[in-house]
């Protein structure tokens, strides 16, 4: 087991968003988290990365309890996130953004190699390596955010709606890249609105609503679920 979350509560100040969340991700799996707008998916990922402190419950990653760890140490453990809103260093160049992705000492060793890898995945990053990240188009910024996360050599990669703002072509590419990353042995936790596509490449999925996990199962079973088809996949039966 790579990641096990049990009875997790978290939120912002007085506002509790996550209630009693329990789930797990096995090594090498690709797990999707679905949920309506404002359900708490982003909050969950932020909590996993240590940006939000838990009020209750446990997060176990590779056998270590990480719920009290600082974000940077969680990164060192290999839990990497492509955050919602991208959180790029807008007044720094593309290249610098990528370099900073490899800040931890382990990743720094392979920086050159990994940059080349990112450049191969997203050629636009190479073309514009000296442009300021802030002047990138929305989709270009999304590519950079994914690239920066890959620079950290994740053991588990958390992706918060990675296809947001990407063209259909790129969306496909990004999903292909996710598959490829998985192939390489990286575990992936994926939050996506494009539920159909996400589930179709996932092993398992969880549905979160109002901060609670209300449903879980294998990808196939979820794809077949009637309620889910209606309210998430937009497919009336």
């Amino acid at each position: 087991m790579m990641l096990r979350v049990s009875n997790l509560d978290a939120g912002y100040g007085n506002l509790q968003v996550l209630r009693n969340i329990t789930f797990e991700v096995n090594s090498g799996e690709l797990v999707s988290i679905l949920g309506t707008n404002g359900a708490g998916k982003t909050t969950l990922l932020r909590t996993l990365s240590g940006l939000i402190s838990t009020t209750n419950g446990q997060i176990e990653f590779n056998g270590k309890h990480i719920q009290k760890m600082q974000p940077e140490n969680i990164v060192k453990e290999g839990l990497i996130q492509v955050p919602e809103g991208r959180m790029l260093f807008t007044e720094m160049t593309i290249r610098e953004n990528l370099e900073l992705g490899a800040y931890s000492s382990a990743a720094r060793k392979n920086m050159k190699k990994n940059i080349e890898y990112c450049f191969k995945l997203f050629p636009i990053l190479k073309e514009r390596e000296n442009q300021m990240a802030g002047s990138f188009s929305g989709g270009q910024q999304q590519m950079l955010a994914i690239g920066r996360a890959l620079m950290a050599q994740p053991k588990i990669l958390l992706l918060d709606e990675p296809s947001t703002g990407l063209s259909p072509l790129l969306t496909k590419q990004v999903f292909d890249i996710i598959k490829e990353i998985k192939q390489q042995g990286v575990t992936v936790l994926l939050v996506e609105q494009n539920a159909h596509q996400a589930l179709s490449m996932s092993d398992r999925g969880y549905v979160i609503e109002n901060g609670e996990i209300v449903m879980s199962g294998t990808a196939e079973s979820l794809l077949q679920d009637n309620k889910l088809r209606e309210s998430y996949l937009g497919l009336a039966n």
Partner: protein
Amino acid sequence: MELLKIKGLTKRFAGLVAVNNVNLTLNKGEIVGLVGPNGAGKTTLFHSVCGFHTPEEGSVKYNGKEIIGNKPEHICKEGIARTFQIVQPFGNLTVLENVIVGAFNREKSYKEAERLALENLDLIGISSLAYSRMKDLTFPNQKKVEVARALATSPEVLFLDEVMSGLNPSEVNEFIELIKNIRDSGISIFFIEHLMSAVMALSDRLAVMHLGEKIADGDPQEVMKIPTVVEAYLGEEVS
């Protein structure tokens, strides 16, 4: 009737031609979609028409009047309202206050502005968020507020930049209905979106940009069959 006519519009950034000699029209009552690969120049085109960038060349006629060179606020006053791809919230204000700012575009009294704002929040279906602080909202909700805010300025034309990204498919379906209703209330719409289902469902007409140039413009079904479009934007075939 031609409401908005973009002619030969070109916008450059230090060596990069982000928008290259683009011609486009928006007719009254129409919904026009704009798609294209990331970095094609769609947002830049919006910025240029709405006065946030000064294009190097070209003209934009609104109701027959040249609006290039006008400040964004004048363009809003003229009747073009917009949302932003990268949300631009008034973070420390409540949702209602955000929309009231928009409502004050035409209203003078606070009472009227508040009424108009509440009305629009209701229309977009986010009245329950009225008293939340804008910066505490999720991105998709912030985008909804931006739509309400833009509508509150009582525009004739609405520019929407990827307002549906981050919504799940069911929510997208609701939003599609919403946009149709807005059009039916007499507002013409020009929107950028990457969600093909929404694009196809909404567009009366569809334009495609690639590397700054407009490479197609016409009936959505037809446009989506053009090989260059397929290649540049969709990759392989249409689903």
